[in-house]
């Protein structure tokens, strides 16, 4: 998005990214948002948490995403798009307590290696959510 909006004279490097893009692979990318109810539940006790605004933006009903998607479709043109989508249910977030230490077991927090480690451990235990560490 940024690349195509960039002026070719002011930001030649960024603008050239758009021209150099031949295709894109999307892996379950939430173009119209995703379910954030479980994430929101975890912030419920902290009304002023800085992530509330982010959850609004990526929620399934987000207006921001609707506008952005329309803009994005207009700039694809002849670029090749491959969209992979999930067909299986994802485990919801929940707090796991042990020895007073709070852990988050999450199948959604796949951008953070630490949480991945915990989740892999959980999966290894026959899909039963157990306390780890």
């Amino acid at each position, binding site marked *: 998005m940024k690349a195509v909006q960039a002026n070719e004279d002011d930001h030649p490097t960024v603008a050239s990214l758009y021209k150099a893009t031949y295709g894109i692979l999307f892996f379950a990318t939430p173009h119209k948002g995703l*379910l954030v109810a479980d994430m929101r539940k975890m912030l419920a006790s902290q009304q002023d948490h800085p992530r509330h605004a982010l959850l609004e933006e990526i929620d399934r009903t987000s207006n921001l995403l609707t506008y952005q998607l329309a803009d994005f479709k207009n700039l*694809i043109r002849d670029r090749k798009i*491959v*969209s*992979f*989508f999930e*067909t299986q249910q*994802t485990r919801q977030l929940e707090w796991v307590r042990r020895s007073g230490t709070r852990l988050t077991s999450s199948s959604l927090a796949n951008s953070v290696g630490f949480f991945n480690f915990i989740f892999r451990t959980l999966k290894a235990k026959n899909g039963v959510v157990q306390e780890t560490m």
Partner: protein
Amino acid sequence: MTAVDKDSALLQLPDTMEEKIPLHADHSQIVKFDNRNAPGYRSALDKLRQFVQDAPAVVGARFCR
């Protein structure tokens, strides 16, 4: 729950512009391939190989305009 449903994950472009591939995985596992024979890995690799073959001519032409 379905974290990112099909309607959100697809751009809903015509099939000639957007290839739509279902994967037997949840939102976490869809980007974690078990091995080189995993369907998602095979598909992604095939697409990337095709891109490598076809891209130079198309992208080159864009920069010559």
